[in-house]
């Protein structure tokens, strides 16, 4: 693990707050100008918190109760275009409902920040966490981050604005937080003061795209084949530059706050001499670390790797950290029906990331914890054993294993699926 030189800690106070409240505190410290809310659980607690702070005079902002998610996201986009720091958010199908507005926010290169309180998509209705909602913007130019704790939620909200508003990036950023497990669970959080935050996040400047009578520009005209490809390439360039900006901002976070993560992109736990590794995103990291401690105590060389930034995807880090590892289990809290090995989204991304490596570990896809089902320590121990067995057997093309699910592996009426089989 790399560590950055720590400086004297900045003034902070400790509070026991939920993940949503931690984001709300960050929004207050960031002096966000325009916030648009529309109700859907579980992300909406952040809007409940900020609207009360505004009503109590602790925060000066325009809070708009929108009439749909589509409007909510368009309001954020247009406020950002005028030069206001804007915040939106949603969960599950609400995030889907506003998808068009999310896409144009990214293609217009407007640094809106959003909270996605991850929630299963309908139907059937479920409040619990699944990562598919936020995943839906993964190809559109949104920066995507999965947090594990309330402290990380607060810190990453600050980082998100800093990176998104950076002239070299200018892309929106969605912060994903496991519904209920983090949105509504309380942690001890160190809340910094506004002066420190403004030293870390400079004022938002849109420059020559600012929508104001002093700057009579036409924004987003009709392009067609003459220019669209160049515009897409510019978004791509912004995303490519984001890696350096994230690294720089994370290092600066250490300088300003005197604390912060060791690695900007991934959270590696007891990876030093690991032969087997489990991977995941979000709160599964907490359970994963407990499971790793237990396995280490039993003499197994196991580590846990939590992907934090999903866009840009940490390919260099994964290649370096998984080099020499024998077997890797990827725990997806999402699905991608019909994809490679019937695995989830994270699995297919990890598999693609490792492809250039001359010697790749055995990679086993798992799907677990859908719809808010708990992923237990025992589940992770079971997954690790499957990875070890597959590695020992030299099985490099396992189809995805569903963990903690009732019923047979596959629908017995589906002959093809039965034939594909898979290890138990």
């Amino acid at each position, binding site marked *: 693990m790399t560590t950055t030189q720590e400086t004297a800690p900045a003034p902070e106070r400790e509070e026991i707050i939920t993940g949503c409240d931690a984001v709300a505190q960050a929004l207050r410290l960031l002096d966000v100008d325009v916030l648009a809310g529309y109700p859907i659980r579980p992300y909406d607690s952040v809007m409940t918190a900020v609207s009360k702070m505004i009503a109590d005079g602790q925060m000066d902002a325009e809070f708009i109760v929108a009439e749909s998610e589509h409007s909510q996201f368009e309001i954020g986009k247009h406020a950002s275009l005028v030069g206001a720091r804007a915040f939106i958010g949603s969960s599950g199908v609400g995030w889907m409902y506003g998808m068009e507005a999310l896409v144009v926010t990214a293609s217009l290169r407007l640094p809106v920040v959003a909270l996605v309180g991850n929630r299963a998509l309908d139907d059937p209705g479920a409040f619990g966490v699944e990562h598919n909602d936020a995943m839906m913007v993964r190809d559109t130019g949104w920066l995507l981050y999965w947090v594990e704790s309330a402290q990380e939620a607060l810190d990453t909200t600050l980082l998100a604005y800093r990176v998104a508003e950076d002239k070299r990036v200018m892309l929106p950023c969605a912060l994903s937080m496991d519904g209920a497990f983090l949105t509504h669970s309380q942690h001890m959080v160190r809340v910094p003061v506004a002066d420190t935050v403004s030293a870390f996040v400079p004022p938002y400047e849109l420059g020559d795209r600012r929508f104001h009578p002093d700057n009579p520009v036409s924004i987003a*005209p009709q392009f067609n084949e003459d220019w669209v490809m160049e515009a897409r390439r510019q978004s791509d360039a912004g995303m490519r530059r984001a890696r350096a900006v994230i690294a720089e901002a994370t290092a600066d976070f250490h300088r300003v706050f005197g604390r912060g993560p060791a690695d900007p992109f991934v959270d590696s736990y007891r990876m030093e001499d690991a032969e087997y590794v489990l991977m995941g995103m979000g709160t599964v990291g907490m359970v994963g670390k407990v499971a790793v401690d237990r396995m280490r105590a039993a003499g197994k060389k196991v580590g846990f790797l939590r992907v934090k930034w999903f866009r840009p995807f940490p390919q260099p880090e994964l290649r370096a950290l998984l080099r020499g590892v024998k077997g890797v289990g990827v725990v997806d809290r999402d699905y991608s029906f019909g994809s490679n090995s019937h695995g989830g989204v994270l699995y297919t991304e990890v598999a693609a990331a490792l492809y250039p490596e001359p010697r790749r570990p055995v990679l086993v896809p798992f799907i677990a914890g859908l719809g808010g089902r708990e992923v237990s320590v025992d589940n992770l121990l079971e997954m690790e054993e499957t990875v070890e067995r597959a590695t020992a057997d030299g099985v490099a093309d396992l189809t995805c294993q569903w963990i903690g699910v009732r019923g047979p592996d596959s629908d017995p009426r589906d002959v093809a699926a039965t034939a594909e089989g898979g290890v138990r």
Partner: protein
Amino acid sequence: MAIPELVIPDLEINRRLTVLPMQEYYTSGHRTCQGCESALVMRYMAKIAGPRTLVTGTTGCMYVANTSYNSTPWALPWAHTQLGSAGSSAIGTAAALKVLMRKGKIPDERINVIAFCSDGGGGDMGLATLSAALQDTRYNLLILLYDNESYANTDIQASGMTPWGAVTSFTPSGTEQRITQHRWKKNVPALLMAGHPTGRYFANASSGFGMDLMDKVRIALDVGGPTFVQTHDPCPKGWDFDPRMSHELAILAVECGITVLWDCLEGELRYQGLTKQQVEGKVRRKPVADYLRRQGRFAHFTDEDVDFFQSRIDEMWEDWILPGVLRVNQTPFGRLPVDGSSPRQAGHAGAAVASGNGNGSGGAQIEAVGGNRA
């Protein structure tokens, strides 16, 4: 680069517009069709709004045909917004201006916010956003709906504001079914007026009456708060007529009583121009056949179809509580206006109500419908 400051005559809200600025803020560079009346509406709107204005526009003709990259006609700041987002773009823009001015991040001044949308974008898809915008009295914003009665840019498909019976790409006239556009045109300005009592200004205008249209835009911007103006714009491509007749058709729609020139300022309903003369009985409405028979989209109409169309227009004038505006004809106060009394003879709608009821409560009902006048 700032646009040179332009002095617009500071008229009282209730005085009619008599002097126009020379400057244009919707200029060359657009690629709209010959005879496009909606482009004319954009020009009127920008001209009277002046340089301290931000304009957002939804997808539609006035996006796709207007703003090809590197040849924008807008001398005002203009931004695209999605098809169903007129109201939300206006709220986002106005809210950002307000908070940035309050925090001293931009100079505190009056900046007009106009979001324009089409009949499809505003009347269909984005209707909920118009409703939301007209509810939020914290912000000064104008929604301008240019109604050319179809999704004209995408190849003329029926919208909720396409007239009954008109042929469009999705509502053809076939050998088995002569009429497939079964829906009567949605009355968006009255719908918004009736449902948003805190909205300060609602108006229906026509591209054929430029001074009236500009006056309505000016009043909307001057009165402040959330306001709404709709314009009726003939479309040669969508309606199938010779482009040289665009302006004449717009005027003819008013002469036939199909388009009604009205506005409602702080709850006071008023009629303008030819419509006012029709209401006052000074001018008779022309038969709708004069209007319908000039357009290819109604070429399949039989005489019975024309008669049906005429009967619905007559009903609008003779049976509605607010002639040409709001369809209520039976109330706890009786049938209004009184049977046999044509609005052509009545001084105005309020008088018709009062005479029908015999006391003042009918008038109070009108006030409640129109809004809360300060």
